[in-house]
């Protein structure tokens, strides 16, 4: 895996993956979205049950992407590979977008089902904190003139933010929340009907593929940006010697 830490090797190995990933993500998204509109209405929730297919994958991926961000920060702090820092930075935008999407679709779902857009229960609050942690990382990462200093400080913060992940995950078990407890990953198997389970799994895969596509594309852009900077610097040195 440390061979891949070399930006050039990483770019060469992952370059062929990017286009297929975008295609897979688009295909899965379309399949999942069409399927989501063909599932039968829920006996209690009616049509609003279809929010499930947007809301649940967004929330799961919002959490998982922060996990990826935190692990990248850990790798940066231990091994000081600039690629790990770039990976953490590239995860911010999709992660924050998924978390924001989960919060917004949650509000849109809560209004008809719970009768309120927002409650301050543990799951919703900890998701909001997750969103704020994404922002905090992004703000700190951009707050320094020195790239190395910014990477080191932001990585420490990103690592500290990992504390919030188990709190989000187990908030529905530790506190009495209006938000329902887990029904997909739980002891005794899923409580979801197969009619809903399959499109949900497809949407999960779609969100995941989309994240990977965005992540790799951003990483490639970053590697290319650094290469351009290095070439410019070399050019400037050569011009001076002439």
């Amino acid at each position, binding site marked *: 895996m440390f061979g891949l830490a070399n930006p050039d090797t990483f770019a060469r190995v992952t370059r062929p993956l990017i286009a297929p990933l975008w295609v897979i993500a688009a295909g899965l998204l379309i399949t999942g979205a069409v399927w989501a509109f063909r599932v039968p209405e829920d006996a209690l929730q009616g049509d609003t049950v279809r929010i499930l297919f947007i809301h649940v994958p967004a929330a799961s991926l919002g959490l998982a992407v922060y996990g990826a961000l935190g692990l990248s920060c850990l790798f940066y702090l231990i091994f000081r590979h600039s690629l790990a820092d770039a990976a953490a930075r590239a995860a911010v935008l999709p992660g924050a977008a998924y978390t924001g999407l989960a919060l917004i679709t949650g509000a849109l779902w809560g209004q008809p089902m719970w009768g309120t857009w927002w409650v301050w229960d543990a799951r919703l609050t900890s998701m909001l*904190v997750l969103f704020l942690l994404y922002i905090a990382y992004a703000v700190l990462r951009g*707050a320094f003139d020195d790239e190395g200093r910014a990477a080191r400080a932001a990585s420490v913060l990103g690592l500290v933010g990992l504390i919030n992940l188990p709190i989000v995950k187990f908030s529905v078990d530790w506190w009495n929340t209006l938000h329902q407890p887990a029904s997909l990953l739980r002891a005794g198997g899923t409580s979801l009907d197969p009619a809903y389970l399959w499109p949900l799994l497809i949407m999960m895969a779609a969100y995941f593929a989309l994240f990977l596509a965005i992540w790799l594309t951003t990483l490639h852009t970053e590697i290319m940006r650094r290469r351009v900077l290095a070439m410019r610097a070399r050019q400037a040195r050569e011009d001076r010697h002439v």
Partner: protein
Amino acid sequence: MNGAGLLLRREMALAWNGGGGPLLACGFLLSLAVIVPLGAGPQLDQLANLAPGLVWLALSLASLLTLERLFERDFEDGTLDLLAMGPLADEAVVGVKVLAHWLTIGLPLALMTLPVGISLGLAPDQLPLLAVTAALGALAFSFTGGLGAALAIGARKGGLLIAVIVLPLFLPPVIFGAGALVAQADGRSPGPALALLAACVLVAGVVGVLAGAAGLRGSRT
């Protein structure tokens, strides 16, 4: 006298001689407390419901505003470099500076919440618990705030940056501190919330000191 004791004495002396010690933060807390009844209406029974939240808001803001200069001035005049060359580990430097911040700002603020609580109509038998939770909460704020201040050393923008970093990490002490007060007001035992608040302080202590030291090291290279 060992290095840690000397550093603590220096920090205390600087806080008292340079800026009048806790007066500034306490004045800020009082000013905030005056705004609330004027904005939300002076009915004491209504204010009493808001009181725990207001006290915690004021406490966190007052801690935040004083945290900005915890490391920045020492960074600018080179004191941090001298400390790095000295015998104290970075963790000890962070721990001592945070402790000094709590002694000079946090504890006085916790005492100051008593008159503020009374003025907002909190029941008198809640005041001891208010003081205890505020003192513990201020310690957690000092630790997490020290983390934020250490990470933001040398950043282009100071105060607001630290606020955005640190405020999400302030939430657990606020939840359990205010939770203890609400539990007591409802006639339940505040013990569980108090224990969780203490746990927050311990976690903040470990994480704050370690991450703060990482921030100090990061600012040097």
